[in-house]
């Protein structure tokens, strides 16, 4: 029994160090758990070490690298240093590229970053969720907002044109309503409500369309780039924002389209 345990310990000590490979690397190199792989740090195959694949992982989706093929592997830090450190530079065995810190209270990330930065001024400390003004995604976000504003302007012009046609269609109805004593204010309120209903219904339809196409678009791009990244996500605040923008525009379009008709003389509405 003791001998068996000793042999097992010896086998474990002699076994190659563990390595995790990305799903993409596993697929490309036909690797599976338990396989042995040799890594070399030099292009000519020099400085090698052998590892045993102990798992296959899905790389964390990275929007900055979604077009890149994630041919990656994860090693224990001492194994990586032993493999990659420059033997001519003793300091390279002590150097690392980054330290990730998980806080017990994530809301204190900024204060923590400030503390560390003031204690060790030579390092850059940044909360992971921090999006700076000049960040790529902050800029892309502003670009999307600009495009949506242009789309809304175009859509408003069309809505106004449609409401104008609707108002023209009802010229005589409006004249009759005014003849029987319905006030201009009531008529204005009715067209405002109509505009509100049309615009809100349109916005809700748009949100429903976005929701319906969300999975399709994500599936297409995820397959196209072999990534788990989510490209489109329709959230409740986003849906509310689109309805909140569309509704007042509908009211304004309804009132603007009917305004000239309501201010006209009743007889002129009958073309008399």
């Amino acid at each position, binding site marked *: 029994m003791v001998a068996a345990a000793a042999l097992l310990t010896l086998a474990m000590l002699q076994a190659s160090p563990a390595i995790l490979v990305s799903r993409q690397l596993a697929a490309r190199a036909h690797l599976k758990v338990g396989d042995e792989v040799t890594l070399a740090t030099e*292009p*000519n195959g020099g400085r090698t070490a052998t590892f045993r694949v102990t798992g296959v992982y899905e790389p964390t989706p990275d929007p900055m690298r*979604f*077009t*890149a093929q994630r041919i990656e592997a994860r090693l224990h830090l001492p194994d990586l240093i032993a493999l990659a450190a420059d033997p001519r530079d003793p300091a390279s065995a002590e150097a690392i590229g980054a330290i990730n810190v998980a806080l017990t209270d994530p809301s204190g990330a900024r204060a923590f970053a400030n503390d560390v930065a003031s204690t060790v001024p*030579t390092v850059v400390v940044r909360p992971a969720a921090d999006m700076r003004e*000049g*960040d*790529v995604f902050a*800029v*892309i976000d*502003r*670009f999307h907002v*600009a*495009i949506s504003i*242009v*789309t809304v*302007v*175009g*859509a408003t*012009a*069309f809505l*106004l*044109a*449609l409401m*104008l*046609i*609707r108002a*023209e*269609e009802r010229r005589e109805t409006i004249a009759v309503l005014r003849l029987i004593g319905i006030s201009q204010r009531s008529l204005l309120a009715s067209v405002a409500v109509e505009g509100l209903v049309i615009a809100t219904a349109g916005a809700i339809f748009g949100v429903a369309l976005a929701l319906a196409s969300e999975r399709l678009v994500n599936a297409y*791009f995820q397959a196209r*780039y072999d990534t788990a990244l989510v490209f489109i996500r329709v959230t409740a605040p986003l849906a509310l924002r689109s309805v909140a923008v569309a509704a007042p525009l509908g009211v304004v379009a309804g009132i603007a389209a009917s305004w000239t008709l309501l201010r006209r003389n009743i007889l002129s509405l009958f073309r008399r």
Partner: protein
Amino acid sequence: MTPLALAWRTTVRYRARAILAIVGVAVIGALLFDMLLLSRGLLVSFARLLNAEGFDVRIVATQGLTRLPIPDSAALAQAVRAVPGVADVVAIRAESADVRTDRGSRRVTLVGRSGTNANPWRLVRGPGLTDAASPAACEAVVDRAFPSAFGADVGAQIQVTALPSGQSALPAIGCRIVGIADFGFSASGEHTVATTMAALQRAMGDTREGDAEVILVSTAAGAEREAIVRAIGRLRPDVRAYSNADVVEQFDRNGFAYFRQISVVLSTLTTAFAFLLVATLLTVSINQRLGEIAVLRALGIARQRIARMLFWESALLVGVGALAALPLGGVLAVGLDRLLRQMPGLPEGLHFFVFEPRALVVHLAVFGVTAAASAAYPIWLAARLPIAETLRREIVG
């Protein structure tokens, strides 16, 4: 009266709705035009930047364009110079540095280049680097914004401290500014100081000339670039050589995908949007004018002429809107380009929205098809209109 004249009169008669429809088409058209400019803008701009440098082949240490030192780059540059068809070879190495002037100290990119007749920058003022200068002297060419930012122009002396790994205790070396230049790939808001490889070596405190990170090769007129790329591959199998076309292709594959995808998605959506809205407007408008059309038919105007009139109505709305979209799209493209160029680290000369004649052709073709498709349903409605029944309904109504 021709169908076009009839369509024009109808459009003028309902001018408020026509103007609104044209405004709508113009705005949507501007967005479509911009998406067409965006679809290849980065690629065209990137290719222009590459070609403007005057070098046709670049050699790097690894696959991709990650900047790593090329082992024994000086010997490689010498060997490449001997390849038939090669006109000039420049080895480039870049490091971070601090530049100190009377106005204080700021971070710059310090570029060292090996002796050559050609430079990967466009000199706009000053004599430029003279490789005949004494090895102890340091000459520097700086970017256009440098003089105003540092208060140092051609002839001024600056102190340069190299920062090999972001920080350094290396002594500063004095350099004299000998030129102002445009650096195509220099990021906006960042400054570049270019000097000789020997001066960079001194700034770095190296005992020997450091390895270059990229070797740029210009080819003689008529030389086959791909053959030169292959020859370099044979010289040193451990390095990678790319022609400008290869670099653009790689950029297209990796760095550019997002904007191409978004431009395809938005172009499709805006076209569908324009089609739907114009078709709806025309259909609603035709429904309102059924009596009028029935009268025209009763007067003996042929079905075909009515159809052509409706087609021209659609063409007028979409055509005028599409033409108005061009200047509007141009202005919008300038604004959107400025917005996107706020991305950090983007080369100053790189643009997202770049005009190409093909964008104009596609824009007009798409709107031509949209006009025809938008008119199809209203034409079908008008063509199958029962004249007597419609007139009776109009009179009774």
